[in-house]
């Protein structure tokens, strides 16, 4: 079947009234999550995951995906108006967006952010439609050795792209791999590290772990300091950017969309890194880099288009290889598995309705979000006035209900609380949580691939070096590790990390 037929199948699914409704719910929730500081899309998706258990899987995934890319749209509102990023991918938008608001140009900043997000979102969906099917075809050639090498590359990338020291990120990855081994061994049936606990016999669940790390951990981090939230009193005015704004932003939009898409695909890359990378590149390309941070519209257009494009790109490895690129994709992967759908190279062929339905719904969702974020901006600004003292008990309650309702087990709730405290401490001591979550998901796949590979080769580890794709992947891994040791390249990486943390 050609691309056109597939797209038509997709629109046939996405435009069904029930799917339109869930797409709308996802987009509204996502925008709200993006607008409200201290509540990210990862926590929101894990909170709403249990609500999809009784839904048709396509509707459920459409809604959860809507929350993810919707949050990318909404996140810029708080960055521009309050100087507090609604979610991590909008941190960099604060730099110029808030300055624009202070100069009375909040309208064009919000407008450029929404329109840029729409352009980049559309670009990434089209790219996803074009890239995913051939990639899935290629992935059919992947055997256990290729999967194992891919996991090794993914985990190395996590360390390479993390915002802190590589050793800390890889330490987190190691702990994530360990967590993935807790519970019954699928091959031998031996319970590992469960210490006789009924909850741990199946291993700690992905949802309680993610809810704890991202939901409870975030609430505790926000509560440790008094939260000041001052909305800059300014007239938002006309939202459409001027011709001059467009001229200044056009290349930022193009570059942001392309960079975002490719960084979105990489494990550990995602929207946050994409937005920072785009900002750094715009600064480098600008004739007046010193003006960045004083209200340059390119500093809003680039990162906002990059984070939206990354949100689309992140679906590629999850839908074609069954490998999540970031914690949100890890939860979506979990959601598909709960619904009895195995993401991977066969998904597009076996579940065309789901794949094309979800992808085209993202296009429909982007149009919804443009409408929600431009004319209704006043409504979202009003949502900012919800006091955190009312908001945080609701987040905690949703976390409690969400983890309990997975298996009606209080054990999962305990796991969530423990990971909540751990997540808070990890934030405090500057240990990245995404490598832990991704390694937790990738670890069991890696273990299974390793064992199958060694069975195939009668115990010879050379099997990983005899197959071209596997060798290629390991070579990239090796070069990446080498680059972190070679002083010149190490300095360059550290410079990027410093730029990001600044």
């Amino acid at each position, binding site marked *: 079947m050609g691309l056109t037929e597939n797209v038509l199948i997709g629109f046939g699914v996405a435009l069904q009234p029930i799917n339109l409704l869930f797409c709308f719910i996802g987009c509204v929730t996502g925008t709200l999550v993006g607008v409200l500081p201290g509540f990210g899309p990862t926590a929101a998706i894990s909170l709403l995951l249990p609500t999809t258990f009784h839904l048709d899987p396509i509707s459920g995934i459409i809604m959860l995906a809507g929350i993810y890319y919707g949050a990318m749209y909404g996140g810029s509102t708080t960055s521009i108006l309050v100087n507090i990023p609604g979610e991590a991918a909008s941190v960099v938008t604060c730099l110029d967006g808030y300055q624009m608001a202070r100069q009375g140009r909040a309208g064009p900043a919000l407008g450029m952010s929404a329109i840029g997000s729409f352009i980049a979102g559309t670009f990434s969906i089209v790219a996803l439609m074009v890239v995913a099917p051939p990639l899935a075809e290629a992935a059919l050639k992947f055997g256990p050795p290729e999967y194992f090498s891919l996991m090794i590359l993914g985990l190395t990338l996590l360390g390479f792209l993390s915002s802190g020291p590589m050793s800390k990120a890889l330490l987190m990855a190691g702990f994530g791999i360990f967590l993935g081994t807790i519970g019954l061994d699928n091959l031998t049936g031996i319970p590992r*590290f469960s210490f006789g606990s009924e909850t741990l016999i199946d291993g700690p669940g992905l949802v309680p772990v993610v809810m704890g790390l991202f939901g409870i951990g975030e609430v505790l981090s926000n509560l440790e300091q008094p939260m000041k939230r001052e909305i800059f009193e300014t007239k938002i005015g006309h939202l459409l950017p001027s011709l001059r704004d467009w001229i200044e932003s056009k290349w930022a939009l193009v570059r942001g969309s392309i960079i975002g898409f490719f960084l979105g695909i990489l494990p550990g890359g995602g929207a946050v890194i994409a937005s920072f990378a785009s900002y750094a590149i715009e600064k480098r390309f600008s004739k007046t880099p010193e003006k960045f941070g004083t209200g340059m519209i390119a500093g809003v257009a680039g990162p906002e288009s990059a984070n939206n494009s990354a949100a689309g790109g992140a679906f590629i490895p999850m839908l074609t290889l069954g490998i999540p690129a970031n914690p949100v994709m890890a939860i979506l992967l979990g959601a598909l598995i709960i619904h009895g759908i195995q993401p991977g190279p066969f998904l597009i062929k076996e579940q065309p309705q789901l794949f094309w339905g979800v992808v085209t719904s993202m296009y429909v969702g982007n149009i919804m979000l443009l409408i929600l974020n431009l004319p209704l901006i006043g409504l979202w600004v009003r949502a900012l006035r919800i006091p955190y003292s009312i908001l945080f008990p609701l987040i905690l*309650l949703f976390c409690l209900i969400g983890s309990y309702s997975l298996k*009606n087990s209080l054990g999962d709730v305990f796991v969530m*609380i423990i990971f909540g405290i751990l997540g808070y401490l990890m934030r405090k001591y500057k240990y990245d949580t995404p490598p832990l979550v991704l390694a937790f998901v990738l670890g069991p796949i890696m273990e299974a691939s390793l064992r199958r590979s060694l069975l195939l080769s009668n115990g010879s580890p050379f099997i990983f070096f005899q197959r071209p794709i596997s060798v290629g992947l390991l070579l990239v891994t090796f070069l990446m590790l080498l680059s972190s040791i070679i002083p010149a390249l190490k300095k360059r990486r550290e410079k990027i990390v410093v730029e990001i943390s600044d």
Partner: protein
Amino acid sequence: MRRHDLISSTLWFCTGLFITLYAPQFDLGTASMPGSGFMPFLAGIFICIFSALTFLQAHFDKEGKTEKLWENIQFRKLIFVSLSLLIYTFFLDIVGFLICTFFLIFFLIHFVGSENWLRSVLGAVLTSILSYLLFDTWLKAQLPKGIFGF
């Protein structure tokens, strides 16, 4: 972060060491067939190596600043929230969702969020009833009923 990294990496090293030493109990297997303990064993070694690296980096980083991580922290709020969640979990099955949730939300809004009595009671009543209707009645989540049957 220097001093904090030294402390945290030591704790991680101990965790890694425990995993490495405990994992062989599940059989490490052979080269052709790794056993159940192999992957946790490997993960333990991984944790030990990278925690040792973090320790060494922090140790040799003489210029690194020591941030005061625990200064001006509202410990009361953190302890209240963590304890209230644990107590809620402990009583949820016995007392039931509605009553437990009412007290949890009231406590959090009033004592942690410092809102007035009226707002706190109203917030707690509305949240517990609406969340019950949403999750139990509409989404059939089977929330615990407790000894009172609701």
